């Protein structure tokens, strides 16, 4: 198992009291596998991603374990941790424009992690690898000499991906890599990520609020709400036949073109995500849930099997009389 997260809790200390951002998360990613993590802003998905590389803010208190190749990132000493970042696992951030240095050529920026992590690599060798990386992400090697402003949004995002691959990591975490991109460019970047997972046998954790993007790119999908994974399973199943009412709402938010029920009937979910400092009692989704029962306000449901290879944390799952339609 490349990535194995067990019982992870991340709580921020704030002036207004403890803020639980991640609550009891279990998640696995294998080599050659892509796993999607879906959820709204504030659900804890970016905190979870940062914690995998131990990049969470200093005010965070952690418990549980994050094993990358069997080693616990949370208790790792500084030297191995530094080696892990970039070389073991790397990250593609959302805003490529803000993550690239505007006054340095992109070739230098891609070479930087190589030079820092592998000091024995000569300048010429680093330049050769930069050219290879650019070609791997579908850009001509000659683009190494350009500055970020000379590239389009999609090209910059490709550069970010090339940089993440620079030290040949086995795990890549991509946090909303296509959010700011157009449909056609988004399709190009997602196709690229899918090909890289297959060709390089890396594990990919892809984070997005758009369940439809995840379902078309990933093998498995986990849906997160208020710090907890509420449903997990094969990507196409979670999108087409969600078992948790929140996963159903996310899946319905992006309509199937041709679905007559969605024509002049945009599906929304009333209300707002809860304040993590004052989570509702019982199931944290129950105040917004269209099928909530009185018992939902009392019992916080654990994740239970919801079919072959999938789990959901909902009192209605597994109850044959009350299975959500």
């Amino acid at each position, binding site marked *: 198992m490349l990535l194995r997260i067990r019982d992870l809790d991340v709580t921020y200390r704030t002036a207004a009291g403890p803020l639980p951002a991640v609550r009891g998360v279990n998640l696995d990613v294998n080599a050659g596998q892509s796993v999607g993590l879906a959820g709204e802003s504030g659900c804890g998905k970016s905190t979870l991603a940062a914690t995998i590389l131990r990049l969470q803010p200093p005010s965070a208190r952690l418990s549980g374990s994050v094993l990358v190749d069997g080693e616990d990132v949370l208790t790792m000493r500084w030297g191995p941790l530094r080696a892990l970042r970039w070389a073991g696992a790397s990250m593609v951030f959302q805003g490529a424009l803000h993550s690239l240095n505007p006054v340095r050529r992109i070739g230098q920026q891609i070479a930087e992690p190589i030079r820092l992590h592998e000091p024995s690599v000569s300048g010429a060798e680093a330049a050769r690898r930069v050219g290879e990386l650019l070609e791997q992400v579908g850009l001509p090697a000659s683009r190494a000499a350009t500055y970020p402003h000379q590239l389009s949004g999609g090209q910059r995002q490709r550069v970010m991906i090339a940089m993440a691959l620079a030290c040949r990591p086995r795990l890549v975490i991509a946090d909303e890599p296509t959010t700011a991109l*157009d*449909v*056609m*460019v988004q399709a*190009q970047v997602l196709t690229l990520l899918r090909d890289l997972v297959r060709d390089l046998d890396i594990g990919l954790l892809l984070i997005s609020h758009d369940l439809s*993007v995840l379902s078309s790119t990933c093998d498995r999908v986990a849906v997160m709400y208020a710090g907890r994974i509420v449903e997990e399973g094969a990507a196409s199943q979670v999108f087409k036949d969600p078992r948790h009412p929140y996963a159903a709402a996310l899946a319905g*938010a992006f309509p199937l*073109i041709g679905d007559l029920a969605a024509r002049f*009937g945009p599906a*929304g979910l009333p209300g707002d995500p809860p304040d993590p400092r004052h989570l509702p009692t019982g199931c944290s989704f129950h105040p917004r849930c269209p099928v909530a029962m009185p018992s939902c306000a009392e019992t916080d449901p654990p994740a239970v099997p919801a079919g072959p290879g999938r789990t959901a944390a909902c009192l209605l799952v597994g109850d044959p009389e009350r299975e959500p339609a």
Partner: protein
Amino acid sequence: MNGPLLEARELQVRFHAGRGKRPVRAVDGVDLAVGRGEIVALVGESGCGKTTLARTLLGLERPQDGTVLFDGAPLGYGSGDLKRYRRRAQLILQDPTGALNPRQTVYESVAEGLRIHRAVARKQREGIETSEVDLVSAALAKAGLRPPEGFFMTYPHELSGGQRQRVVIAGALALEPELLVADEPVSSLDASIRGEILALLLRLRDELGLTVLVVTHDLGLAWNIADRIAVMYLGRIVEVGSTEQVLQAPEHPYTQALLSVVPEVEEIEPVVLAGEPPDPSRIPDGCRFHPRCQALAGGAAEAAGVADRCISDPLPVIAAHGGHRAACWLAEARSPSSP
């Protein structure tokens, strides 16, 4: 009046890119009509000119050629004309956080437009007894912020993303406009909130008879709320028709490619076009889509005997009135009745 509320005729907007450079032809010949109470989606990739077209329709850009007609009359560009126009046509932008002043309360944000346009005095002259508080309350309630008084003294940072977008919409509704132009109204919002905002736009049309032009790259949004769709590519509208026609029986290869990469459409072999939309300062000869066209590259145009026309004959501008049309030589060869 029975004509369209908003109409563009042979609209051209060019920007000068600098000395010795070719001008950027952002809008390069567009005819478009938006009927009263209609929701029209203007769809395309970034850089296709859709935002420039929307700004021109609102009088924020002045076209070099062509006319914008509102309620049958050509738009005037004097400051008084534009001020009058802005009471009737309002813009909603993508990012509600950027559109709201963080140091202004919700009440102040919504009341600002009313003060600029002296809306209270105007109403009283018409013999309608009202106050600023009444108008702000009414606008917030229409935007779904209830009870409105509860939001008066809140600041943007105290609101969720969906509530902020509702405040922006309330600010636009306060002046009781006839037309809303919404530029990517939900693309910065979370999935669960998106549906609520789209439902609000639909309700405003049904209850207030509002006309909405929504600029988006999101075909699912168009399927959710739009009556008609205009697909834009490199400054031109390349396909127009009812939402069902354009999304379920697209004729233009560009529309077909856009649809094939939308994850929400199943069982279509994805056509991922290579490259980025080309440079609007160098619009290709012939059909402007031909260098990226999968029907030309795949030989379908050749088989229909139109490949030469695709490369060298420019296509006429699609007329604003009429049914489902596509600016494509291949589509025309297949159905000789359409122009």
